[in-house]
């Protein structure tokens, strides 16, 4: 019986060509057309792990494109390098009634380097093709096979690639030897996969049917949290002539440390001596580390170098020492080696970087998580984190690029998950104080000081080191106000663990408050208007606010003597919700008009039905920010 089944399956695989399916668009159920620009009619992904160095991926996909917005979904994009061989691609195009109109093959594909910008790459390449069809809807059917000469990274399954795509049917078939041990991460998959095992193979099949297209909702959590996906990590792996075994982060971190990092740390004796001399007068480990970090920032710069064991192994520290540049891996490894020279312990940490926070999954270790490397120094309880790719960032500060998430520390004892510090709503503070004088013609001029802290620290960091003309140009983008000009610009960094950036500028805005008849129109909130967000009915996803912040603005206007201050009515607005708090005040004292604004926006995840409240909160802030005073003139 077992034998029979296996034979039948093989037969099925070999005959599953195209032609026999009917791609008439009318066969698509109406609910799958709603909000969809494309519909995946059928996708069959088969991953056959024949051996650790021979993993075959076979994808057969039929996708119907309803209109030009769905075109890109029909594009076939295949990345390859010397470890990935494309064995064959063929495809067909059908018109709306399911009649074959065109065929394509590998020759029709564009082939280009996968490098982007200035990156020293070796052999990562991409092939892509999009059939040009001008009659909608149409269906593209293709089949390709790829051989992976490694099994550290197994192609995963995401049946629904985008919000505006619906799925009629999608299956994922993972085949391995019955004895192979794999770990599987299942997300948002309700059923149980079909498993069939014989003496040669173990097959596991996941299926998804009738997934509807949805509208894209702003301020929603990342797709992974609500879309179906399956990821697989084999226990025994082979990768670029390396072999290893892991079932958890501890073992994976150990392998990275032993196989990819340990041999990369030696430095020339002169550099070791330089470091020893550099820190000899420093008392604490932290002070020593600070000095060494300064040395790193002065000596090196970031250059993307995608070489060495599939982009996972850093250039040797000795080489960085000589070249003065490297990518994140190389610079962290180099910094770690410099710290070693001063007997300071540190961990090479893999992180998923980006403003949107993504943690390593504590329950599922795999090599595909993480896209960046940072350094962690335990310093006997005074844990300090270093971002090694920037020459400007203060010692011990990670910024919103890698804050508040789980990272994998690769140590001699193996891997462990650590949590980077969170930048809180209160810490992410922007404080602005301006003292401006209004002329009779409505022109305003004066001094403005803004202090940026926490995640807001790098709002204006890019200005540092730029020439004056460039700074003025960039300031005109930040403060995009008609007729604005800057006289003096000063930027100072307080390079502490909780750093601050202080921007001190003198500004001049000609005719800011226009005079019309006997009124002068002044919008006292010149610099900080919160943008409105869409209102939305029938919200389905939770409201997700990635990071909170606090803005506090105080502007004191000295009014010209022709303004009748007695006629100014004080303004006072204050509202609060779970999403934050807003205060806006304007009051006159003598010839001074003081405008005060405070906005606190909280981070967190809130139920879908609270979106209405959220959009009301933000849009009320937006409306209040436009407060306009009509000042009566004497």
């Amino acid at each position, binding site marked *: 019986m077992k034998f029979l089944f296996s034979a039948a399956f093989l037969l099925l695989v070999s005959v599953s060509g195209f032609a026999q399916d009917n791609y008439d668009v009318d066969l698509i159920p109406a609910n799958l057309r709603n909000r969809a620009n494309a519909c995946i009619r059928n996708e069959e992904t088969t991953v056959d792990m024949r051996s650790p160095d021979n993993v075959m991926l076979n994808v057969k996909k039929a996708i119907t494109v309803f209109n030009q917005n769905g075109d890109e979904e029909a594009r076939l994009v295949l990345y390859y390098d010397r470890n990935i061989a494309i064995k064959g691609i063929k495809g067909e195009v059908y018109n709306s009634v399911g009649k074959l109109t065109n065929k394509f093959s590998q020759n029709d594909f564009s082939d280009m380097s996968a490098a982007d910008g*200035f990156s*020293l790459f070796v052999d990562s390449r991409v092939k892509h093709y999009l059939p040009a069809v001008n009659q909608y809807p149409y269906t593209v059917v293709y089949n390709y096979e790829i051989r992976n000469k490694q099994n550290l990274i197994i192609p995963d399954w995401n049946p629904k690639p985008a919000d505006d795509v619906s799925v009629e049917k999608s299956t994922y078939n993972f085949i391995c030897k019955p004895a192979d041990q794999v770990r599987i991460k299942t997300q948002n998959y309700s059923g149980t996969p079909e498993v069939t095992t014989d003496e040669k193979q173990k097959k596991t099949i996941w299926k998804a049917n009738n997934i509807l297209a949805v509208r894209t909702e702003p301020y929603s959590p990342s797709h992974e949290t609500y879309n179906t996906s399956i990821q697989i990590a084999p226990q025994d792996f082979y990768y670029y002539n390396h072999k290893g075994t892991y079932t958890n982060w501890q073992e994976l971190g150990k392998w990275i440390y032993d196989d990819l990092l340990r041999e990369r740390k030696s430095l020339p004796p002169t550099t070791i001596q330089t470091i020893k001399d550099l820190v000899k007068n420093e008392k604490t480990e932290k002070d020593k580390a600070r000095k060494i970090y300064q040395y790193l920032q002065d000596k090196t710069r970031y250059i993307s170098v995608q070489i060495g064991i599939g982009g996972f192994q850093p250039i040797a520290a000795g080489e960085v020492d000589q070249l003065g540049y490297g990518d994140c891996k190389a610079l962290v490894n180099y910094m770690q080696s410099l710290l070693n020279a001063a007997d300071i312990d540190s961990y090479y940490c893999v992180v998923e970087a980006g403003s949107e926070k993504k943690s390593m999954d504590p329950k599922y270790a795999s090599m595909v998580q993480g896209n960046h490397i940072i350094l962690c120094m335990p310093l006997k309880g005074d844990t300090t984190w270093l971002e090694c790719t920037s020459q400007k960032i203060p010692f011990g500060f990670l910024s919103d690029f890698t804050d508040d998430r789980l990272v994998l520390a690769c140590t001699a004892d193996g891997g462990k998950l650590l949590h980077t510090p969170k930048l809180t709503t209160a810490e992410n503070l922007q404080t602005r104080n301006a003292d401006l004088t209004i002329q009779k013609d409505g022109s305003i001029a004066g001094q403005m000081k803004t202090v940026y802290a926490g995640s807001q620290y790098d709002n204006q960091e890019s200005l540092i080191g730029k020439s004056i003309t460039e700074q003025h140009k960039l300031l005109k983008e930040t403060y*995009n106000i008609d007729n604005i000009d800057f006289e003096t610009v000063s930027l100072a960094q307080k390079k502490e663990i909780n750093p601050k950036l202080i921007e001190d500028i003198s500004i001049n805005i000609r005719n800011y408050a226009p005079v019309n008849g006997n*009124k002068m129109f002044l919008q006292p909130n010149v610099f900080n208007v919160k943008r409105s967000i869409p209102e939305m009915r029938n919200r389905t996803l939770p409201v997700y606010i990635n990071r909170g912040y606090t803005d506090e603005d105080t502007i004191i206007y000295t009014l010209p003597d022709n303004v009748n201050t007695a006629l100014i009515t004080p303004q006072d607005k204050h509202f609060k919700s779970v999403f934050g708090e807003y205060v806006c005040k304007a009051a006159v004292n003598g010839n001074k008009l003081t405008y005060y604004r405070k906005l606190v926006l909280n981070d967190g995840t809130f139920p879908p039905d609270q979106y209405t409240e959220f959009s009301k909160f933000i849009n009320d802030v937006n409306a209040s920010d436009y407060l306009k005073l009509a000042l009566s003139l004497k």
Partner: protein
Amino acid sequence: MLVCRVKLHQFIIAQMNKTLTLLFLLFLSLAAQAQNFNYGAITYDDYEFDRKKLDSNANAIVLKEFGTASIQRDDNTGSMELIFEHHVKIKIYNKEGFKEANIIIPTYKDDTREETISELKASTFNYIQNNFVETVMDKKAVFTENRSKYTRLTKFTLPNLKEGSIIEYSYKLRSPNMFNFKTWEFQSDIPKVVSEYLVYIPGIYNYNVSLRGFQKLTDQKVELSKECLRLSGTAIDCSKITYLMKDIPAFIEEDNMTAPSNFKSAIYFELSDVQSLNGSKTSYTKTWKDVDYELSTDKSLGAQMKRKDVFKDLIPVITKGSNDDLEKAKAIFNYIKKQIKWDNYYGKYAVDNIKKALENRSGNVADINLNLIAALSAANLDAEAVILSTRDNGTVNKLYPVISDFNYLVAKVNIGDKSYLLDATEPLLPFGLLPLRCINDQGRVINLKKPSYWIDLTASQKTVSSYILIGKMTPEGKILGTLTTHTLGYAAYNKRKDILRYNSVDEYVEKLDERLTRIKILEHSIINIDSVEHPLTEKYEVEFTVTDGSNTNQFYLSPFFINTISKNPFNLNERTYPVDLGAASDERIIINVTLPEKYQLIEKPKDMAIGLPNAGGKYILNTNLEDNTISMNQVLQFNNAIYQPEEYLFLKEFYSKIIQNQKTEFLLKKAN
């Protein structure tokens, strides 16, 4: 031996005022020898070079740059090749300048020929303890990347870079491509102290040379170089020409400008003819007369224009019901638009032939528009081809034909005394309006029977939008009304494109409604989405809040709630290059709102009528309260597609005046 002729034309882009500023420079001098500088000879003057002399804002400065190009015979293959050598020395002032140490050298390759890089060396020099310490770049640090089928990139970055470092690199490039010699860019994104280009052109080669951009040559020398090349035992003399430019400012791109190559100072070569030893001459760049003949007989261009046979049977069907030539032309234009989908590639030559493109229903620009020309001709209409260069590709050389400058082909049909430029690649554009990418100075009309000629490429329609709001205000301070908008030209094209990004009109309006936070769209109808020959009309029943309703006895009301101008698009203090907006535009807003009760108008925004110099544009505003109805009438016009740099500050002030006015409001008081 043959006398060599070298002309230098300097031309500044014709967009300025449609007339070419021509400057023929022909120097013949035998002054000092141009010479490469020694590699690695860093001086203290180099290290201490004061950037204030050139540009105090510079992050890096090219101290010296020297290039040579010559034609030589490759002894291995026996074929001629171009040898180009490039040597440069750069002072890096700060970290912002580090990116100048990331070098990418692109080279050409195809199945049979390729350019090669050799003798590449690069070093960083740092001044340490009164000594210049050289760090030589390791050969292993050089990466080559096959970017695409035709491009290879040689990439490297310099080692041991510090603020204050001097970097130096040089390489030799061998090229089988003699046609364009090698372009020399005097100007780059950092300033240069000296940039010098020395070319050896054998007497048997004749090149047309042109200098683009605003910078002038500091010097140019032409000398005779005896016996610089030996061919079949015959010694050939060369012209040895030196082009020198000093104190070159950095080239900085600005908003609203066409291709940087139009403005960047660089010297271009185009092979005109080659004389062989037996005295016969092969022409490459020729007169338009030669080009006309070539293009009209080219199997991928002229030959395709003639293929009426493809459409012989189709024309009666396509033009059925058309009463005159214009209707016929429109029917054919619509047929081609519908029938063949553009594959997003430009081109002036058909890939295979037009029949294949028609059958596959897909093709590049030339495939589609050659089909259009053939079809128009098959219907006995007078159709021609126009070759042109797109905005991102730069303007074409007008002094003599440079065929490689042209990258696009459209159709021209002449009906009666009118002619229409047609591009069937964009289904959303109406008959006679070229896509914005084609609006770039002039194109050349290729006629199968008559000599070719230049034609202006301008937008045949203004960008027009109008908004009319008729409504009434409720006692609670809400406005209920009907907003009708009409759009034409590129405005209609952009809007249609935007609408079609959604699955349905309902979804488009839903998104619009979400975006307009203070406005509720109660009902909508959009007319002529697909009828691109007609204005796009949108009608919305809207409800929105203009006051908070807290005080109905006396309140402020801003009439500027449609397309408010709050940001100045021309906010900078200076401008170097022309502002190119693509097309003239016209926007009108009319608002009529009936108030719930009798109100008095206490204050109102000033009525205005301001203009740009030379009738370049105007803004008119009139507001009124009459018979309990508030009205606003606004016109914003730009009559030119291109404004000169000296007009920038006028544009800035023009917008500033509008912004100031739009900050003021109506003050209404209930009448007793």
